[in-house]
Structures are given as C-alpha cells and as structure tokens.
C-alpha cells in the first residue's frame, strides 16, 4: 500500500466504515509510515476539535427572540399545507 492509497481510504478508516481486511492493511501501513500516522492522527484531532469547539452557539436571548419570531410568523400563516 502506498501513502496515496492510504489517503484515499482515510475517511472510511476514521469513520470505521470498512471491512476488517482493508482495515488491517491500513493499520499495517501506519506501523511503518510515520507521515501517514501523523496525517491520520492530526486529521482525527481536527475533527474532534471542531466537534467539541461549540463554535457558533446560539445565545439564550437571541434564541428566545428567534423562537418568538418563528412562532409569530407561523401563526400568521394558514398552517401546514396537506
């Protein structure tokens, strides 16, 4: 397996959506290829940092205002069309 092959499979590897044999081949590559190990590890960290970052949280006061506006607009319409 080349580094380019490894990279193509990286998303499925991180998402654990691959068969056991491909997984074993990728892990074998990681054993000896330090660059791919670093890329894999730091990509995983990238995902975790974004997922845990609470970027763009909705503040409570804005949340209340938006909800009031949404419900007021909904009430002003005829309701769900069926």
């Amino acid at each position, binding site marked *: 397996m080349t580094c380019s092959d490894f990279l193509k499979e990286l998303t499925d590897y991180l998402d654990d959506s691959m068969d056991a044999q491909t997984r074993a081949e990728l892990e074998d590559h990681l054993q000896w290829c330090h660059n791919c190990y670093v890329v894999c590890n730091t990509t995983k960290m990238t995902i975790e*940092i974004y997922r845990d970052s609470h970027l763009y949280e909705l503040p409570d006061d804005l949340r209340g205002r938006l*909800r009031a506006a949404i419900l007021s607009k909904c009430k002003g319409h005829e309701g769900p069309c069926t």
Partner: protein
Amino acid sequence: MGTIQPKVAEPAGDELALVHAAKAGDIGAFEQLVRRYDRNVFRIAQHITQNREDAEDVVQDAFLKAYQNLGNFQEQSKFYTWLVRIAVNEALMRLRRRRPERMVSLDEDIKTEEDSMPREVADWAPNPEQLYTQGELKEILGKTIQGLPPSFRTVFVLRDVEGLSTEETADALDLSIPAVKSRLLRARLQLRERLSKYFKNRTGGDGKK
C-alpha cells in the same frame, strides 16, 4: 488508532408524534420541534453563510418553510434531515445573494488532487486546544473553516460537527455518497493542513522518524 465516534443521539421516540400533531396544526408541537433543533440550524446556517444576520434570517425562514410544508414531509427520512435540507438551501441562497460575483454551488467540484495533498506533516502538541484561550481558539477555528469552499464546508459541518451519517448528508444535500465522501476527505485534509501551523508541536523535531 481510534475512530471518530458519532455524537448525535437518535431522535426521541416522541418525534414522529410531534410531527403528526404539528401537521394537524398544533403549534405547540411545532414549537417543541423548534426548541429541539434551533441550535443545530443556527450553527449550520452560520457555518455556511459566515454571517450572523444571515444565520438569524435562515433560522426563521427555514422553520417557517418547514411549518408551511410539513404536509409534504413524507417521513421517509428523519424530520431533522428534512429540516437540514431546507436550512442548507436557505443558507446557500443567502450566500449567493451576498456574493453574487462568485457562483456558489454544492456541485462545484475539486480542481485537482493537489489541493488536499498533505504538505505539513509535523506532529501536533498533545492537547493543541490548550495552547490558546477559548476566544483565540474560536477565532482560529472560525477563520480556518471560512477559508474552505462552501461545498466542502457544508459537508464537513453536517458530517463532522452535526454528526449526520454519510447517507443522511447525501440525502440532505442531494449529493451522491461518493461525492459526500470525496468532499469530506478534502475538507478534513485542508482543515488539518491549515490548523497545523497553529497546533504543531513546538518542542523540536521535524516530524520525521
């Protein structure tokens, strides 16, 4: 090396009952659906539009549209996936309005393989997020994701931030599964590359064995 664990829980069992009640005109039931997903919709909208006012408008318009079109929701997907599809379309529409000079499309594909090939292979500090204050970290993450093309940013946000499955992301964006996977890989690698300059281990070493 471990894999990424999805963080999103399955929808509560009462969700379909709320959808049915809302379809019948029960505004209280719809309000509960708004409470359940308004934070997610806001986050997605802000990520796509990169503009606070636009994100607020998207939240309002997406929920209003969802309410008006509940009768067309066939219940073949989760309510949330259906809502995300509406919100993404609203957000992209706002983005196009704000940047008419640039064609904004989810279909825009990748120029070359080169854009995602790792160049920076230095390892990161063990807890890179602790190198910065909370405010600095948010600024770095916001600035970095803003640099991605909208089509990559949207797939990354739905899949990795909001925790939708690949199939749900494809469904919400009307993309094929290979297209979602291709964009996701490129988004992840580009973000990793850009974050490396902030997070790499500064204690020495060139990242090679």
